[in-house]
């Protein structure tokens, strides 16, 4: 313990508990990387931090706090992103073990690859609410982190968001990524929101543009009527869409707020608002974020928030990105999502709930993190002792399974090859290189600074140290469709992709396909043969490697005693665990909370994503 050099990645919920436990357990040389700064909502569990530390580096403050009770140990903090190029294989090689306390899949995969390359054992972990797990990954002895399929962030087809929402989350995505973005974000971004007004279907006018000196209240009402009234009426005109679906109701300001007519003119009503933190809720006297507002109140919030942005935060308009800690933005998105939900007969939600969905907030408590930290240290000690027969994957359950709340499982054996031959089906005549790189190479394959070759030709490279003409050339290539690259990529072409930092290289065989189902294949391309993290909408290849499952009734009835599983029984345990999962974490009810959330190891940042290129697919855009 004393001699060991340990790297911790993450100084948040798990990180604070882990650093404390490592220090108490006799570790004397700990390095810790975390790019984040401290926020108020961290303080309910990241106990090394205090109110006075808000805004400061987590890694640094954690170190200082632990040194208070263990002054003679060495803790080296890095306020940095673990994906930075200075955290290379050489850097990782200096450690005896790496302990992850991360909250996103992307960083975990990156660290996994570096640990494989550096041949350093990795102990992975994750928590959500009352659930948690710890897994051990040692090259040559166990599977690597990516050998088991991981759930990836859910994305929704464009048409669901723009035309046929059926869940509240669809309304949130619309409100956040379309409406909010359109009104307050970068004007140059593509946006799928219908911008033509009814009076002027042929003109170029963008309804969302506020005319010079246009009265704010008028403007706000105009926007309201356009998106909740006119756009819905237009959609209703397309009978086909609604043949088997509940028709939405258009809503106009005069319907939602018939009695407010008198007050709707003029600027926002309030004088209670502070200059630097305008809030529609405060203006309107709505105090309880847990309360579900009526359609009328949601409408008032919508109008008021819109006005407040223009009155008090005009300078930011055009540059705003939704931030869950931006109260006014959250109010606006909540109200907009609720009005839309109302239109489509979807239940309304409180600001508290809406914020959770829009901000991809992961619910978290101190106790689970403390338990997991303890389990991590126990595994880390085994790793340092080379006690590989006793490595365990540890699961912390909310409800006991076979009398166990903490369940050890033997790790799986290493796979012969993590990456079997990959095949990518794509329309080579219409898909740009940039899309393949973003959606497949960086996103699915998790490469950070990839290099793409076609035969001996380098068509793209990412990273530092590029010559200006090289960089310009690559920029040009990004915008070319595959078939028109200098080294054309067509059916049966083989791409070689590589990431030096991660020491990862693989080939992708390209298959041309003309058409893709916009609902089932919203990316417009399909990757097969990938036994790493799998998209929910594509058949998992992980199943093909399944081990024979033994289905004797005895397995299920055996007591807590008998947990040394033979390979066949491992699948069964996963099935048992899955039956405890409620896969829809997004259906939170305010008071009950969703503690039966997925047993996922990663708390993904981007749980809710809009398909990035709305131009794909066959469906016509609304006119």
């Amino acid at each position, binding site marked *: 313990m004393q001699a060991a050099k340990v790297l911790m990645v993450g100084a948040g919920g798990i990180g604070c508990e882990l650093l404390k436990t490592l220090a108490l357990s006799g570790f004397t040389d700990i390095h810790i990387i975390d790019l984040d700064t401290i926020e108020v909502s961290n303080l309910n569990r990241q106990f090394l931090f205090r109110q006075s530390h808000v805004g400061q580096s987590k890694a640094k403050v954690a170190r200082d706090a632990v040194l208070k009770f263990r002054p003679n140990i060495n803790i080296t903090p890095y306020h940095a992103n673990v994906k930075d190029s200075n955290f290379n294989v050489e850097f990782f090689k200096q450690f005896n073990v790496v302990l992850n306390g991360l909250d996103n899949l992307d960083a975990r995969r990156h660290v996994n690859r570096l640990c494989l390359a550096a041949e350093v054992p990795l102990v992975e972990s994750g928590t959500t609410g009352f659930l948690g797990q710890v897994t051990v990954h040692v090259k040559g002895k166990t599977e690597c982190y990516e050998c088991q399929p991981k759930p990836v962030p859910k994305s929704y087809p464009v048409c669901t968001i723009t035309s046929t929402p059926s869940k509240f989350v669809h309304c949130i995505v619309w409100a956040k990524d379309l409406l909010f973005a359109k009104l307050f974000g970068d004007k140059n971004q593509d946006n799928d929101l219908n911008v033509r007004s009814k009076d002027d279907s042929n003109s170029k006018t963008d309804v969302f543009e506020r005319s010079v000196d246009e009265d704010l209240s008028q403007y706000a009402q105009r926007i309201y009527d356009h998106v909740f009234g006119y756009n819905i009426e237009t959609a209703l005109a397309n009978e086909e869409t609604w043949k088997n679906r509940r028709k939405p109701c258009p809503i106009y300001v005069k319907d939602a707020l018939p009695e407010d007519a008198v007050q709707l003119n003029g600027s926002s009503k309030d004088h209670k608002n502070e200059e630097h933190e305008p809030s529609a809720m405060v203006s309107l006297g709505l105090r309880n974020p847990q309360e579900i507002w009526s359609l009328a109140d949601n409408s008032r919030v919508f109008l008021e928030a819109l006005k407040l942005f223009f009155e008090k935060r005009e300078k930011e308009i055009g540059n705003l990105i939704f931030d869950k800690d931006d109260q006014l933005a959250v109010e606006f998105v909540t109200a907009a999502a609720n009005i839309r939900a109302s239109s489509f007969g979807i239940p309304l939600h409180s600001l*508290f709930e809406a914020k959770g969905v829009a901000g991809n907030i992961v619910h978290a408590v101190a106790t689970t993190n403390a338990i997991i930290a303890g389990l991590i240290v126990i595994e880390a000690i085994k790793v340092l002792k080379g006690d590989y027969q006793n490595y365990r994957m540890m699961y912390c359950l909310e409800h006991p399974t076979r009398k166990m709340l903490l369940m050890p499982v033997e790790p799986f054996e290493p796979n012969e090859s993590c990456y079997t031959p990959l095949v990518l089906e794509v329309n080579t005549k219409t898909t740009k290189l940039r899309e393949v790189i973003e959606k497949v190479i960086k996103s699915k394959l998790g490469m950070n600074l990839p290099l793409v070759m076609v035969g001996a030709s380098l068509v793209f490279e990412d990273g530092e140290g590029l010559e200006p003409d090289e960089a310009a050339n690559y920029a040009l290539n990004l915008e070319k469709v595959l078939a028109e690259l200098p080294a054309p990529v067509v059916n049966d072409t083989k791409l070689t992709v590589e990431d030096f930092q991660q020491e990862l290289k693989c080939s992708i065989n390209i298959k041309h396909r003309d058409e893709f189902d916009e609902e089932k294949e919203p990316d417009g391309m399909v990757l097969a043969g990938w036994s790493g993290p799998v998209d929910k909408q594509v058949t998992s290849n992980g199943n093909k490697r399944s081990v024979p499952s033994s289905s004797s009734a005895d397995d299920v009835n055996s007591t807590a005693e008998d947990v040394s599983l033979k390979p066949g029984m491992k699948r069964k345990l996963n099935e048992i665990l899955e039956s405890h999962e409620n896969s829809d974490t997004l259906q939170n009810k*305010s008071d009950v909370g969703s503690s039966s959330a997925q047993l996922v190891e990663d708390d993904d940042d981007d749980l809710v994503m809009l398909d990035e290129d709305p131009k794909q697919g066959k469906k016509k855009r609304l006119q």
Partner: protein
Amino acid sequence: MDGGGAERELTAQETALYDRQIRVWGVDAQKRLSKAHVLVCGMNGTTIEFCKNIVLAGVGSLSLMDDQTVTEADLNANFLIPPDESIYGGRSRAEVCCESLKDFNPMVQVSVEKGDPSLIDGEFLDKFDIVVVSGASLKTKLLVNDNCRKRSKHIAFYTIDCKDSCGEIFVDLQKHSFVQKKNGGETEQQELTYPSLQEAISVPWNNLPRKTTKLYFAMRVLENYELSEGHSPGKTTLSDIPAVLAQVKDVRDKMSLNESQVPTALMERLLAAGKKEHPPVCAILGGILGQEVIKSISCKGDPIKNFFYFDAADGKGVIEDIPTPPPCAN
């Protein structure tokens, strides 16, 4: 317990601080937590973990009872005591821990209660909703449990003990009603009735299922040995092993148990442990107990009934229900 539900709304400060945990257990539970009063007797590696957890969770108040003076040995598994004699010298463990704990959450009242758990009377206990005892003799545990049960106020009783790399938690919620979430999201009201500590440990061993966790038996043997020898907890050492094993054999013969149910190796481990606490195990036990107390206060979620064991040797965290209900109950 106080009637739940809201006489007051959470403040903006509470909503901001507790946001992430409110998303786990809801506003109602958070309000109940803020009205709960907890007593902890015995400050050691596991109870400080527990205290950290419930202070962060936002209980109404936490009272610490431990008059023992801080010694260097205490610094081992305790992150609440700064290793500076000018700070801790001559002061009780409760005092020093109290100071540090206050820092974790200014909204929780943390205070010291001078005294000895074996001497506290019933009326004193009425101040609390939750009582946790650690590092106490069997006699003391039974006494406090009994006193809790005698009150007309409902007081939940817990013990928690760590022996190096394994440990035990005992839960007595008397009659406890709670809400349980079913698959599919609906909730269901349930009620459990708990035996007292006396009742639980009086169950003849030959009535217990064969596969009952060995730690249960081992801990009882140690407890009884300490009782019969007048040892305070943790004072029994490996040199006592022959006498302890003799007692084990006695009990086993009476109850027709075989050696594997109370293994010699396990007894040796417990005796060698003394007062040592392995910090990762403290974190685990303190975390589990924290969750249990939160469940009990909020009346949400199925609580442990009635013993919990963790052993780092196999990594299992197991619940034992003693006395085991007959198969047709539930």
